[in-house]
């Protein structure tokens, strides 16, 4: 208690590491001296167990008290045994069954089993000493002493771990992310499985004391399912240093289990039994194979669910063990489906399916090996061979594997996949669309694409506020990940020098254009995203979304044209600047679909008007053709008048008499984009002409004139100079046929 009174965490400790350490230290202190360990009970328990041990010893091996044999074991082995037993005991401490069995061992020993199952008592005795010695620090020592408190057993186990939690929550480390007593990097402990289900976000193992146990997976060469355990002989697994010390422990446990019988509490018994009975069955005839206390512990979490199944099994009073031997594979295999169902919800369904398939296969294998009634020895030996071939298989428990994959899935969690992983999402959407489209045609079996389904976490709004203390003067100056501090003041200063050189001016103007382009691009991306947001949003929000979208579109257009409300919008200058830049052209191409017809027409006109200039500037980039498609879309909606003026712009006709050659038109015709655009416009005009019956005569006349002039020009230009257009609309011929006679028409045809 004294230690508890100096809680270091109440100090406003700015050093988080220290804070963590202190918590750990407090925990450990608690366990050893404080409420975690109860001295009195330990002593009592020790006495009792020592008594029993003596009795047992005397019944089997009259010579050699416990003490002597303790020296027979070399010192290193002793230490090893200690650690081992600590491992085992701590793992199954809550099992009152064991302890009860220990209590009742004396009177109810089935004699038949003794000789075959129990190892040399001497070895067993060697273990007793260290075993008892290790019971000291554990909480669940209480269970030894007080068998009627099994319900509390688990609470006790959880309690020290839970104790860590309140401590943390009552005094948070200031301004920092939640502190972990054990870094995330440590593999899972006993209680890991329930934790997974509860706390998806942090696979934090809660039981601190269990850290020590984790040192031991490595030395164990064997991680087997309980059924497999049946078949492993002792000799094949040498390669780790614990041949002797290990087995007696298990026999002790085994014995406990067997004798525990009817009074066993179902749940903890559940934990023990598969391995127990596996060992029992395996032991007939052969000495015990290597222990797997880790396995026992490992199965703890997984075994909790099948408690019910075991209840029935254990309800039967301890029938003579030999008769129980045929049973283990039965309930064992019955159990296995329940045991080996770790949390796979985070895996993709296909993945999960494969996993389960594999498990099924394994199960079937085992069943066929163990389930058959006859010649079990033979089967076992073949299985034995299999294990012999690869004694190092399954070094990682399924639990550990799940843990690693859990960590990696955690990294993939995202509240907004479209924000975090935009390209991936889009890519897969496109793929799916393709697949769907294909399927419509083929109507065949769908090729399943494995798609990673990442856990989706709901977005939690945290407005983090640094901790403030009342009554204190001033604020704490602690900056952390959640509360960053401003380090530098970066201020933008604009230059307003009058005597800037022309170059600088040009450069600045270009820079400004670039900035405009970037801003408009962001708007464009937002607008393009609105469709998706629209689908995701609620009904009430939708009008607001639409409004936002419209506003953004207007902004975009203004940006394009050069927002100058007072100014008469005749200057194309701004637009031209944008169009000179490659990105600007692409931007315009993407914006066009969103603009209203009038706005789009404006854009088209501006483009057409300045086309030669643009062509010249585009010589290097050659991006203009990208505009063709959106332009054609726009064209479909244009009325004849607009089209006429477009042609006018494009061809720069009628021209003044002074200019003998139509440079504008020439340039247009010699450029791929220009020519294609011209053709498109012409074809559109033709469409309108032919389809629309009640066009205004004025427009008609204009059109006709233009066409006449255009055809004349076209004829004049030598064929070689004509560029290769991207697409030739089909109705051009009919168009021209209206205005020219046959001969010229042929000429035109050849040119086209």
């Amino acid at each position, binding site marked *: 208690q004294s230690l508890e009174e100096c809680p270091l965490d109440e100090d406003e400790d700015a050093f988080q590491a220290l804070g963590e350490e202190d918590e750990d230290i407090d925990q450990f202190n608690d366990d050893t001296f404080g409420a975690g360990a109860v001295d009195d009970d330990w002593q009592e328990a020790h006495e009792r167990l020592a008594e029993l041990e003596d009795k047992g010893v005397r019944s089997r091996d009259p010579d050699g008290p416990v003490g002597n044999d303790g020296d027979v074991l070399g010192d290193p082995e002793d230490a090893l045994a200690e650690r081992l037993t600590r491992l085992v005991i701590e793992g199954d401490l809550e099992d009152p069954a064991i302890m009860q069995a220990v209590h009742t061992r004396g009177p109810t020993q089935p004699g038949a089993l003794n000789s075959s199952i129990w190892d040399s008592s001497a070895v067993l005795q060697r273990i007793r000493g260290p075993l008892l010695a290790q019971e000291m620090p554990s909480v669940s020592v209480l269970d030894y002493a007080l068998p009627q408190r099994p319900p509390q057993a688990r609470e006790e186990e959880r309690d020290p771990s839970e104790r860590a939690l309140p401590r943390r929550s009552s005094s948070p480390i200031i301004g920092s992310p939640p502190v972990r007593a054990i870094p995330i990097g440590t593999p899972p402990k006993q209680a890991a499985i329930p934790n997974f289900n509860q706390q998806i976000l942090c696979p934090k193992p809660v039981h601190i004391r269990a850290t020590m146990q984790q040192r031991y997976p490595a030395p164990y060469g064997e991680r087997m399912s309980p059924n497999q355990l049946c078949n492993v002989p002792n000799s094949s697994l040498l390669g780790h240093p614990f041949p002797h010390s290990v087995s007696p422990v298990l026999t002790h446990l085994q014995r406990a289990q067997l004798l525990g019988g009817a009074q066993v509490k179902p749940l903890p018994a559940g934990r023990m039994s598969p391995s127990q009975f596996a060992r029992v069955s395996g032991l007939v005839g052969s000495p015990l194979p290597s222990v797997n206390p880790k396995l026992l512990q490992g199965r703890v979490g997984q075994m909790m669910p099948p408690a019910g199944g075991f209840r029935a099994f254990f309800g039967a009073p301890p029938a003579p063990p030999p008769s129980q031997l045929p049973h283990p594979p039965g309930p064992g295999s019955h159990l296995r489906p329940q045991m080996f169902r770790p949390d796979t919800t985070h895996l993709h369904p296909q993945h999960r399916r494969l996993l389960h398939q594999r498990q099924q296969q394994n199960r079937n294998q085992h069943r066929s090996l163990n389930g058959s009634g006859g010649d079990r020895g033979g089967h076992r030996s073949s299985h034995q061979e299999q294990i012999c071939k690869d004694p*190092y298989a399954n070094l990682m428990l399924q639990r550990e594997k799940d843990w*690693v994959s859990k960590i990696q899935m955690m990294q993939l969690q995202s509240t907004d996949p479209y924000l975090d992983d935009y390209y991936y999402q889009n890519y897969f959407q496109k793929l799916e669309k393709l697949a769907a489209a294909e399927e419509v045609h083929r109507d065949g079996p769908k090729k399943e694409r494995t798609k990673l389904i990442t856990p989706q976490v709901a977005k939690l709004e945290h407005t983090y506020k640094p901790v403030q203390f009342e009554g204190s003067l001033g604020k704490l100056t602690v900056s952390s990940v959640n509360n960053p501090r401003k380090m530098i003041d970066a201020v933008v200063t604009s230059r307003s020098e009058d005597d800037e050189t022309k170059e600088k001016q040009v450069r600045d103007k270009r820079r400004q254009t670039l900035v405009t382009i970037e801003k408009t691009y962001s708007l464009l991306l937002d607008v393009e995203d609105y469709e998706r947001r629209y689908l995701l949003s609620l009904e009430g929000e939708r009008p607001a979304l639409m409004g936002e979208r419209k506003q953004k579109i207007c902004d975009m257009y203004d940006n394009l044209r050069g927002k100058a409300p007072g100014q008469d919008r005749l200057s194309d200058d701004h637009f031209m600047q944008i169009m000179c830049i490659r990105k600007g052209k692409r931007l315009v191409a993407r914006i066009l679909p969103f603009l209203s017809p009038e706005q789009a027409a404006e854009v088209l006109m501006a483009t057409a008007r300045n086309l030669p200039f643009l062509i010249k500037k585009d010589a290097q980039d050659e991006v203009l053709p990208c505009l063709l498609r959106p332009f054609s879309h726009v064209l479909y909606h244009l009325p004849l008048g607009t089209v006429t003026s477009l042609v006018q712009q494009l061809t720069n006709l009628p021209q003044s008499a002074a200019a003998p050659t139509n440079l504008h038109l020439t340039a247009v015709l010699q450029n791929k984009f220009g020519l294609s655009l011209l053709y498109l416009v012409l074809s559109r005009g033709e469409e309108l002409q032919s389809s629309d019956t009640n066009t205004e005569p004025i427009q008609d006349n204009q059109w006709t004139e233009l066409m006449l002039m255009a055809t004349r020009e076209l004829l004049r230009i030598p064929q070689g100079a004509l560029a290769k257009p991207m697409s030739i609309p089909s109705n051009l011929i009919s168009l021209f046929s209206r205005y020219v006679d046959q001969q010229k028409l042929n000429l035109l045809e050849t040119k086209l």
Partner: protein
Amino acid sequence: EKHLVLLRDGRTLIGYLRSIDQFANLVLHQTVERIHVGKKYGDIPRGIFVVRGENVVLLGEIDLEKESDTPLQQVSIEEILEEQRVELQAKQESERLKVQALKERGLSVPRADTLDEY
């Protein structure tokens, strides 16, 4: 189930994967380092490997059936090491010539950063 690991320095290891962790640190058992030169390859048995995750480029499972039908020819260790040495020499020679040629033209290839091993 054998696995093949490719490391950042270009080595190929083949072994039984025993353990992993979230950093992709690997524990390989009965590892064999396989050196490929042209169509020949040689295996050097190495034992147990613990590989730090950051040096792993890729890891894949070897299909034991397909392992046997490869067009590659296995040769002894000495031979493959010899081949490797020869190949390395040839590469260095060509590199040297290249650098010289560029130097003559007044160009220089910037030296690769020591961190980039490939």
